[in-house]
Structure formats: structure tokens, C-alpha cells
């Protein structure tokens, strides 16, 4: 488990059915790209969050396959559209096998 990895998500508390709204997500993660070298000249191995997904009540909103070129503390902003109340779940997968999650409830109508 990478150290101090903390997700943050912003989802409105409520929304209208069928009307798109914005979601923002951030997670603290170094995103060691695999391009840097240490003081001895050895390449520091890649260690990043490589996958992100946002789902709502079990259905997919969006996914992202991340590479080393995503900045430290990966940030995503995207839109969702839903028809009913429920729960958003956010999942980040780390190169080291860890999984980080967060969730947010939302009411419709």
C-alpha cells in the first residue's frame, strides 16, 4: 500500500433525473513515473495508480487507464447522468496491487 493515499471526490448531494452534472475526483499519490533516476543514476521503477473507475448503482459511468504521464495527485473531472437515487463508487488501482475506494450517495427528484 503506497503511503498516505487519500481520495477526495466531489459529487452534488442531489440531481435531476436525466440531467448531466459534474463530478471531480482527486487522490493523493506520488505517481512515480518510471522516468526518474536516483542519485546513483539508477532508474526509479514505475509505481503509479494505473486505473480509475466511477460506477453508479453497479453501472459504469467512466473509466481511465492512467500512465506515468498523469501528474502527481491524479485529478479527473467528468460528467454523469442518472435516473434514480443511489451511490457512486470510485475505485483506484495501484501498480502495487492496492485498491483505494470512495463512495458518495446522491438523491434524485
Amino acid at each position, binding site marked *: 500500500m503506497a503511503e498516505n493515499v487519500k481520495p*477526495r471526490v466531489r459529487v452534488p448531494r442531489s440531481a435531476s433525473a436525466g440531467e448531466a452534472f459534474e463530478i471531480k475526483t482527486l487522490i*493523493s499519490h506520488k505517481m512515480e513515473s518510471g522516468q526518474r533516476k536516483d542519485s546513483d543514476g539508477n532508474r526509479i521503477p514505475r509505481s503509479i495508480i494505473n486505473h480509475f473507475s466511477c460506477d453508479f448503482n453497479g453501472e459504469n459511468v467512466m473509466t481511465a487507464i492512467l500512465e506515468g504521464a498523469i501528474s502527481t495527485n491524479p485529478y479527473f473531472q467528468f460528467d454523469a447522468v442518472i435516473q434514480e437515487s443511489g451511490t457512486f463508487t470510485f475505485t483506484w488501482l495501484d501498480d502495487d496491487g492496492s485498491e483505494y475506494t470512495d463512495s458518495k450517495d446522491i438523491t434524485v427528484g
Partner: protein
Amino acid sequence: MKKFTLSATIAASLALFAGTASAQVDLDAVLNIDGTVITTRAPAPDFLDIDEVISGWVYRASETQALQMDDFDNPAMLFVDQAMDDWNRVDGTEGKSCASCHTNGPEEFAGLRAELPRWDAERGQMMNMEDYINYNRVTYMGAEPLKWAKPRMDAMVALISLQSRGMPINVAIDGPVADIWAQGEEIYYTRVGQLDMACANCHEDNYGNMIRADRLSQGQINGFPVYRLKNAKLNSVQARFKGCMKNIRAEPYAVGSDEFRALELYVASRGNGLSVEGPSVRN
């Protein structure tokens, strides 16, 4: 190698860059953070020769400015979140967390950041934010002091600075701190290092101009701790002082040294009137 005046070379480079490439500075840009307007320009304090003090935010590219205008987009807030966890975490021999004594939350510290560094009569010395955090940790929590210019301390400084956001910097420069302030002023104007430069050469004589591909600001510290895009983490005042000195190839003073404390007081006072922005976003 022929001897030549380094400062003449630098002056040449600075002059050539005035107005090249990058977008011009928009002095009228408004810093509105989630609905609160932050003062980024103010009349300069009396002791300064310049007319107006201007926050570093004004000198950054619009994309960078935008990052600070929303508390979610602002990556520094991730560290404020971490500090909040730390605030609630028991640490030390007394079995306490910050929350144990400060039952009303970090909101209790509204106004503190705007006055620091300041003379503390009880302690008989000038204190900055790091001093207060460590004094309380050691004395009341029986906890280890946090290392300055390291993530855990910088995050806590950010959390507490945030409570004063929008309030005008109002640092005292007279009374018991007068001598320290004078020392800070002297350091600010003294040329040092291989490049033979003083803080003033860039931050008073050339703010608004480009240095290579960076736009120079007035070197105000109202925005500290600052999340820099360059290292994607929070940076403290004295860590930046150290970085600046290394950039001009001078032997930096130590973080926590008397010299940097004096400089912190003096530089803070140069921004009296600007709003606390911490934690801010810069390049």
C-alpha cells in the same frame, strides 16, 4: 576565463525578456475562491518604496490561477485533509490529539496566520506557526516535535493558515520585534552568493519581469504554504528561502535559523494588507 560582471549579464537577460513569449500579467484578475473574493493588491506599507503590494497569484498563468479558485481543484487541499486526520490523531505520552484541547476545531485559529510571526510575551521569543505547533505538541501532548519543511508539518501549517484565509496580513514590526525586523530588512537587501544578488534585486527591482521563462513576483509570502506545480507538494516559507538562496548560488541559512526567522518576519510585513491565501497554488 575573462572576468565579467554577472549582474550585468543577468540584467541583460531580464531586460530582453520583458514582454516576450508569455501572456501579459493581468493586474485586474480577481481571485474568487468558491465565492469569497481575496485581496490580491493593496497599498504598500509605509516603510516600502513601492506603491502597491501584489500577491504572487496575480503573476501566474491563468490555468495556474484557476487551480486556486476552487477548493476542490486546489491540490493543496489534499494535504489539508491529511492534516485534519492528523489533528484528530492521538500522538504522544499524554494520549491526546490536537482535538482533545482545541475542542472547537481548527476554526479556533481564525486570525492567527495573519499575525505571524509575532512576539509571544509568555514565551519571551518571536514565534511562527511551526513554533506554536511544536510548542503545543511537546508541552501538552508529550509528542515529538514535527520536523520543519516536511510534509506533516507543512500540512498542519496549511490547515491552520486556511482558517485565516481572506484576512489581511497584519504583522507587527515594532516593539519587541523591532531589532529582528531590522535584521530581516538588512538580509533582504544584502547581496550574497556567486550571483551576487539580494532578494530585492528580483522581488523589488524586477517584479513583473521575466527571469528566463518565469514571471517574477514580489516574493510575498501571504500565500504560504504553497503547492508548487514544480514539485507537486506543499512548500513552506523557509524551505523557499533556502531554495532561493541556492538558486543564486549562495550558502543558504538553515531552516529554523535566526536569519530565516528574521527574514520571515520582514518578508511577511512587506505583504501587510494582502489577504492570507494559504494554502495557495503557484508554479
